[in-house]
């Protein structure tokens, strides 16, 4: 596959992903260097002017209807189970985004009253609950992998 040019936003993501990989490999100096590069590209990235949660709906629908099915069919042909895993988790998490946004549109801040927000740092699952989930329902990561917002 040829080299391609990425947007600054994508480069910031690639670098934050490699930061985490270096942390897992216990290479703190390299982690810090990737973090520095990622932070630079995050500041270069185009900022959005979004005003409403509804602005997300179009992209979410596009991912669910086209983006993930395209990964699924390419990965099946290639027998790429890593990509299939990414697709399976990502599609479920994206469906959660869709349903959370639908509920927030109906209930407003009442949805969050008495609840906390937790994000699974392994798969991105968002939990709206008083206490941290014992196990991520999507990827089965333990409670310790949840970050409280």
């Amino acid at each position: 596959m040829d080299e391609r040019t990425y947007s600054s936003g994508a480069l910031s993501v690639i670098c934050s992903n490699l930061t985490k990989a270096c942390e897992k490999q216990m290479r703190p100096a390299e982690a810090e260097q990737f973090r520095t590069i990622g932070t630079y590209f995050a500041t270069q990235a185009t900022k959005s002017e979004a005003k409403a949660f509804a602005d997300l709906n179009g992209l979410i629908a596009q991912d669910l209807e086209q983006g993930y099915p395209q990964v699924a069919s390419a990965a099946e042909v290639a027998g790429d189970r890593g990509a299939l895993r990414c697709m399976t988790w990502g599609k479920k998490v994206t469906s959660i985004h869709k349903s959370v946004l639908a509920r927030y549109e109906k209930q407003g801040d009442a949805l969050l009253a008495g609840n906390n927000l937790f994000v699974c740092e392994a798969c991105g699952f968002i939990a709206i609950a008083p206490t941290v989930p014992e196990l991520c329902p999507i990827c089965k990561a333990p409670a310790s992998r949840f970050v409280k917002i």
Partner: protein
Amino acid sequence: MHAARNVALCTKDCLCLFICPTGATDTETGQIDFTKCLDGCRLCVDACPSHALYLVFDRYPRKPAKEDKVVEALESLLDSKVAQEALAEALARSGSAGAKLAKALAMSNRILAEDCAREARYMLPQSEQSKALLRQLAGQPHTGDFPAEAVGKLLASL
């Protein structure tokens, strides 16, 4: 290859302290002193009753490249998640009610995007693909605050 400790699993004060020939397991931070750990020794890993010690490697295998179609599909999703993260960040900044929800969505989209980047091309920092990207970045024109030094250090050490 040297040992590392999962501090959350460690039940403290036991066999790795006795078995380690160099004292690398006994530190004030709870982590192994990598400078003292002997390459390939692994005695503490086998001795630990709590499975709290494991090995981290200095070298990783070269992986087969992904199919072009898989990379294309994953990277187009990556772009979509990047756009959604930016949208959610704008909502979080606006200070509106629901800013917390926006923050959660931004973080979640970042994780989804990272997963696409990892599965497409950038799983290993040491891979040829990661290094090719770093070289590409080093060769591009940039604004003054581009961290060229960090890119150079990575190319030298990975």
